[in-house]
């Protein structure tokens, strides 16, 4: 293909966009509406997932040692715990540290009075944080099998509830996003198809004059991809503004909530949503126009 033909085809694709402005607008509106729903849903779900993940990060398992366990044994066990894949962090608390934390909490600033010795002696422990709470059970079983371990504190219900909710969100969001994608593809292909049906005569004329399939198809495909691109860009801009506004509003009006819940910053959401929307919009525009024009090429 000569370079002038490439530029001619590119120009025709852009010109077609304006030439068939009602069809272009209808297609952009369809793609925009579908991707707006998709984007909105993704933003909400990503935040839900983030809140659950933050909650999971706070779930910890505490390990106490048998009397007579040496510092070296504790340290060795600490290293073994840290190596486990489900463990994200291990913090050692000596019994003195524990007393220094709880003493003032229960007995006030002069907590040491009346206690010549540390009443929590022997309460050295490891506080273990998990990267995946669903693996808490496995960790606890392993810890309980260790001879140095006297007691393992954990909350089975918290872990199972969180991992259950997480799984539910994963499957629900996956399902809904798939349905929305399927609906988008169906609606957009239909719009593209109707637009091309109207121009069947134009395709026939081109073929009679001796245009190759590529020459006929390329401007339609460029037009479809441009429609997809604009159709993706509009909801992205709207969702960006809405999301930023919602975040500011929640932080301003519900200070308690913003302290409890950790909302994802707008850039994190859009780092994934932008390529997804553009790929879906442009991809559907490309595939839709390509396959619909193909049906009319056998003249």
């Amino acid at each position, binding site marked *: 293909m000569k370079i002038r033909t490439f530029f001619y085809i590119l120009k025709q694709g852009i010109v077609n966009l304006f030439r068939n402005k009602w069809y272009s607008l209808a297609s952009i509106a369809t793609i925009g509406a579908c991707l707006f729903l998709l984007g909105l849903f993704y933003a909400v779900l990503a935040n839900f997932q983030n809140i659950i993940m933050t909650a999971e990060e706070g779930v910890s398992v505490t390990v106490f040692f048998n009397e007579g366990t040496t510092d070296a044994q504790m340290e060795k066990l600490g290293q073994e715990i840290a190596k486990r894949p489900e463990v994200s962090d291990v913090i050692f608390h000596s019994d003195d540290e524990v007393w220094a934390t709880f003493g003032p909490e229960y007995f006030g600033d002069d907590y040491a009075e009346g206690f010549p010795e540390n009443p929590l002696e022997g309460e050295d422990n490891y506080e273990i944080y998990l990267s995946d709470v669903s693996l808490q059970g496995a960790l606890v079983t392993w810890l309980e099998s260790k001879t140095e371990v006297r007691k393992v504190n954990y909350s089975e219900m918290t872990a199972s509830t969180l991992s259950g909710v997480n799984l539910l969100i994963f499957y629900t969001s996956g399902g809904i996003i798939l349905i929305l994608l399927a609906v988008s593809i169906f609606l957009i292909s239909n719009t593209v198809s109707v637009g091309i049906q109207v121009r069947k005569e134009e395709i026939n004329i081109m073929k*009679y004059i*001796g*245009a190759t399939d590529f020459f006929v198809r390329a401007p339609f495909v460029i037009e479809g991809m441009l429609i997809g691109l604009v159709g993706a860009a509009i909801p992205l801009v709207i969702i960006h503004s809405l999301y930023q506004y919602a975040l500011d509003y929640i932080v301003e009006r519900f200070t308690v909530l913003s302290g409890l819940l950790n909302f994802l910053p707008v850039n994190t959401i859009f780092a994934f949503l932008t390529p997804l929307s553009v790929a879906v919009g442009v991809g559907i525009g490309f595939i839709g126009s390509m396959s619909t024009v193909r049906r009319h090429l056998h003249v």
Partner: protein
Amino acid sequence: MSSNSDKKRLKREQFVEENGLIFLDNVTKSYQTGAPALNGVTLRIDKGEFVFIVGDSGSGKSTLIKLLLRELTATSGNVYVMGYNVSKLRHRNIPMFRRNLGVVFQDFRLLKDRNVYENVAFAQRIIEKSAGEIRRNVPSILATVGLAGKYKAKPKQLSGGEQQRVALARALVNKPAILLADEPTGNLDPGNSWEIMKLLEQINENGTTVVVVTHNREIVNAMEKRVIAMKKGVIVSDEEKGYYVDED
């Protein structure tokens, strides 16, 4: 002449020399229902001829044009155009083949949203002519068909006769060897019909083979060209300087 394409071209030229520019060899075209649209038609049209194909509706003349354009393929027999066996053309080779033909239809088939200049230039863009060549060739062919002053007009701003001239200009701008015209005056008044016919005659005098499908008796009889008459899918007469005689 070592390359394969040169050999093929020579072979085609030799075939045209021996069998004519258009050659139908015992061609039958049947549709799923009803009698065959063409039934064992054998026909030869030589380079530089002006031929009328006449007949009533259902006589098979439009099917004949569609076979020549490779819009349809023959059920049996062979259709040769410029030495190409049209029935055996691969889908990807059809555009290159069609660039040898200029086509004009009764309903003009212009691109409605493009102006006169763009409609004609489109044919040149397909064969990847440079912008300079297009700027030279399009005004020249528009002048030939008498539309130099209307190059900016959209098809709906033109009369039927003018639209057909645009279609003619588009068909001719790539200098085709054959011009196929399917009822070119079907939608025109007598005055415009004669204008178009005069243009076709002029084009033929410049060396293009012209095949016109029509049932305009007055024009056929006045022009004294070769007339092939068809009825129910067969050729019933083929005469030099013939007439369109009423079969009934």
